[in-house]
Each structure stands twice: as C-alpha cells, then as structure tokens.
C-alpha cells in the first residue's frame, strides 16, 4: 500500500539528508492541505454571512426610509414609491399553511402505508418513486398548475366551495367568489402536491428508526396496527416528525416557481382564499428584473431578507429537532 500510495512523490534513494527533505516536504504538504480544507469549511460559514450581509446592505435604503411601516403596511405602489411587505408576508404564510394542512396528514398516511401496510414487494418501488418525485424541479409543478390545475379548479372545486359555504357565516367570506382559477388556494394546493413526496419520504425514514423489537412487543400484547402506530411509532418519533414537517414548511415558504404562475400576483390581503394574492418569492421573481434602481429594488431585497430570516428560523428549528432524534436513536 505504501509504495502505491506515495508513488507520486519522488524520493531519493540515498542518505539521511534526502530522508529529512522528504519528511519536510510531507510536513509542508500536510500543513498546506490542512489549512486548505479548513479554509473551505470556513468559507461555508462565510457564505451564510455574505448572504445575510448583502441582503441587509441591499435592503437598508428601504428599511431606513420606511422604518417599521415596511412590515405593517400593505400598500405596494411603484409609481408613488410606497412599499409595504405585509400583503406578501401574509400570502407566504397563508399558502404555506394551506399546503401543510393538506400535505402533512396525507404524507403521514403515505408513510404509515409504506412502513406498516404495503405488501413487501411494493415497498421499495413505491418508496423509490416517492423519493424521486421529491426531486422534480418546482417549475414542472408551476407549468402544470398554470395550464391544467388552475383551469380545472376554476370549473370544479371553486364553484363547488362557493355554493357549499355560501349560506355559512364566516366561511362564506373565506370562500367568496368569483372563481378566478388563479389565487391563494390554488397556490396552496400546488405547494401541497409539491411538498407531499418530501413529507412522505422524511416521515418514512423517521418511522424506520423505530426498533422492530418495540413494535413486535406491542403486537405481542395484542395491539392492532393502528394502536401500534399511535401508541409506539408516533410517540417514539415525535421530534423527528416535527423536524421533518418543519423542513417541508421551510421548503414551502421559499418556493418560487410553483407559486408564481398560479398566485395571480395581486398585492392585497383578502379574506377569501379564492382571490388572487401574492407571496414574497413570487413578488421578487416577477418584479426584480424590471424594478428601477433605488427604493423599489431595495424594497424587493428587503422582502428577500424577511423571507430568508423566516425560513432560517424554521429550518434551524427543524434541524435542532432532527438532531435530537438522532441523539435519542443513537
């Protein structure tokens, strides 16, 4: 092994002097490689700081000009140079909420199905398919949503919801028409479909960390499958599940392309989720390239900063949860 390994290093045959020269070269090479890798590791840290710093720098003109108003105003007028982030923050949170309300139960259902119910020979193919689907780029969901899903919703689900909840107080405001097709609900549903494979594959991975003995013991006591899932699997993996769900939430919050096509891009806070809205990411994607220098562009960077901070908090919490699970499991 040694001669294979150091073949590339020329070494002279004779003399202690040569020997010490070779050792010297080893030492220098060693130190160089150590600092090289350490610098690269520090660069990863620097990358995060550079992102935060450049966003803060770009957003500063807008933040200092509007002050707190930037966060609580919902007017967004490029001509009057009046910018407030509230409508976009609201849209981001509401679309993500709709997505999680649907994707979490369905994703957990898929994970339970895959770990407890599915016939053995189908587990690997379906599991692999779900993981592959989690990697499909979001623009695919966007184009499908725009051409197929939104027109479909406009003709079916949305009129149905409007007539169903029409006589019910409160809910008739949430589902007030007309059915545009494009809007907050559509964006939320597309996001749900997009994060679904992600939720499913993370929860399946988490479920598989449960030691088989624990499940077998519960079955041995006469538990039904559902009782095993509810009484053993879920309590054992709670931290990991919450972590996985928050990772998915982090994804939904920052998702751009799937949302931009179907949200309708109207900067308003509307009680009805059938009306067009907007999100932080959609606003940046649609307006940044055309935005004029100065306050307009700076406000868009400010939106980016808000988005980054929100998703940083969510993702950090998710990682801490998942790290706790690993410690418990290991």
């Amino acid at each position: 092994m040694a001669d294979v390994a150091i073949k590339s290093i020329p070494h002279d045959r004779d003399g202690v002097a040569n020997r010490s020269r070779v050792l010297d070269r080893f030492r220098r090479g060693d130190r160089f490689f150590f600092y090289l890798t350490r610098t690269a590791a520090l660069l990863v840290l620097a990358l995060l700081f550079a992102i935060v710093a450049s966003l803060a720098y770009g957003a500063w003109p807008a933040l200092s000009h509007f002050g707190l108003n930037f966060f609580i105003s919902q007017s967004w007028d490029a001509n009057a140079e009046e910018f407030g982030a509230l409508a976009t923050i609201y849209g981001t949170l509401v679309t993500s909420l709709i997505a999680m309300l649907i994707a979490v139960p369905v994703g957990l259902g898929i994970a339970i199905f895959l770990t407890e119910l599915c016939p053995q020979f189908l587990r690997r193919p379906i599991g692999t398919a779900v993981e592959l689907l989690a990697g499909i780029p979001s623009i695919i969901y966007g184009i499908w949503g725009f051409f197929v899903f939104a027109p479909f919703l406009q003709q079916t689900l949305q009129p149905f919801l409007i007539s169903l909840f029409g006589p019910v107080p409160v809910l008739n405001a949430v589902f007030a028409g007309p059915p545009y097709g494009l809007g907050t609900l559509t964006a939320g549903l597309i996001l749900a479909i997009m994060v679904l494979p992600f939720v499913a594959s993370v929860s399946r991975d988490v479920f598989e960390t449960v030691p088989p003995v624990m499940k077998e013991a519960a079955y041995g006591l006469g538990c039904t499958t559902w009782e095993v899932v509810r009484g053993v699997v879920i309590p054992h993996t709670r931290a990991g599940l919450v972590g996985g769900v928050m990772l998915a939430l982090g994804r939904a919050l920052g998702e751009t392309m799937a949302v931009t096509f179907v949200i309708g891009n109207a900067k308003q806070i509307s009680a009805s989720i059938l009306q067009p809205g907007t999100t932080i990411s959609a606003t940046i994607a649609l307006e940044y390239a055309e935005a004029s220098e100065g306050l307009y562009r700076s406000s868009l960077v400010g939106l980016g900063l808000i988005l980054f901070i929100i998703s940083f908090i969510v993702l950090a919490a998710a990682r801490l949860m998942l790290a706790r699970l690993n410690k418990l499991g290991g």
Partner: protein
Amino acid sequence: MAALYAARARSNRIAMGLCTAAALFGLLWLVLILAVLVWEGFSGLSLSVFTEITPSIGSTGGGLLNAIVGSLMMVFFAVLIGTPLGLLAGTYMAEYGRYERLTHVVRFINDILLSAPSIVIGLFIYEFLVAPFGGFSGWAGSAALAVIVIPVVVRTTEDMLLLVPGQLREAAAALGLPRSIIIRQVAYKAALTGIVTGVLLAVARISGETAPLLFTALSNNFFSTSMSQPIASLPVVIYNFTKTPDENMQQLAWTGALLITFTVLAMSIAARTLSTRMKK
C-alpha cells in the same frame, strides 16, 4: 369484552383505510402530473427542438438549442466551482475536525444552506456580482448555481468519508504516511462512489433551478456561448414561454419541461444506483 374488541378492530380498519386512501390519493396526483407532462411534452418533441434556437412571438417552428447549450454550460461551470470547495470543506469536517466545535457549527449552517430559498440566493448573487460588476452574465448564473452545489457536496462528502472504516486510515498511518496523503489516496479512494453520488445529486438539483437564474443569467433569444453575456437556460426559457399567449412557445415550454424532468430523474436514478452499490 366482545364489544371492545369490535370497536378496536373497527377503529383500526378506519385508520388503516384512511392511510391507504391517503397513499392512493397522493400518488394519484403525482402520477397525473407526470402523465400530463409526458403527454404534452412528447407531442412537441422533434429534431428541430435540438437544432434550432428559440423562436420569437408569432413565428412558427424553432427549438431550444440555445437554452440547452446555455443550461449545460452554466451547470458545468457551477459544478466545476462548487465541487472542489464542497469536497474540501467536507474533508475538513470528516477528517481533521471530526470532534471540533467548528465542524458542528459548519454542519448546522450547511444544512440550512441546503434548503435555503433559491430565490434568495439569486438576490445574493445579484447584489454581490451582478450589480457591482456590470450586468447579467452566464458567470453570475453559474455562481448562483454553485452556491446551491456547495452544501449538497459538503453533506455527501462528509457522510461518505465518515463511512470509511478507521482501520484503513490506521493501517496507512502505521506505514508512516502523512495525514494529507492518507486522506487523498486512501480515504478519497474508499469514498469515491459516494462523492460522485453527491456530485450527481447536485447536478440533478441545479438543472431544474429557475429562481436563482432569473436575474443573474437573465436569458438570451440568440445563440450565445459567451459566459460574460446574458445566456439562455432551459428553466428560464420555460418560465418565459409559459407566460406568453403564443401556442408554439407554450408547446416548446412543455417539451423543455419534459427534457428537464428526464434529465433530473436520470441523474437521481444514477445517484441511487451508485449509492446502493457503495453500501454493499
């Protein structure tokens, strides 16, 4: 007693029925999307997609040549920039600093970068490269994609190096080899498939990224291989063409979407095959 048993059996049946229904329902949508994609995309697939450049509004024919070339170039340079950096950082975390505090911090930050919103990365590169250095360019697009590549490669490199058994390193050290040579010639060799897997995953991840390219590489209606000019890319062309009312362009958007999906799926499958071989 019998009533209790019946109730338990019933709630079990209901819950398990709901889980199966959820699985069918969820998978149905995903299959549906792929089916529509293949259906719409295939009908526009022809040789001219690969030989002609993007059409303008109102014209017929045209293809995606400039977008495909632009995407390939930007992905290539992004991997070229991102892989060495990610590899070295992962090496530090697994080999030198395995028990250091710094490693824990870097791992935490890296995991956050791994799922950071990609549009924010586009903004960052705009502020950092595009605004100060005069305009949109292929290099800026590549840099934005490289920022996405780095955390993926760091993660897999660290994971794969941690899988290399310590005895291999000890055996090499017992022969008197210095540490940097042990890492490069023993540990890297043992973890090679894993590291390649990481690069493949990174390529799969960036080849469909749209948001970070929108205001870094912009797009270009003409054939260009200059990385210092705005350059077309498949995802951005799909994005722009979907928004037009022109049916010819919408058809090309579907076809481009099909091409991207196939590429991404092929890369992911290759990565999976490699990593299962690695585990054996």
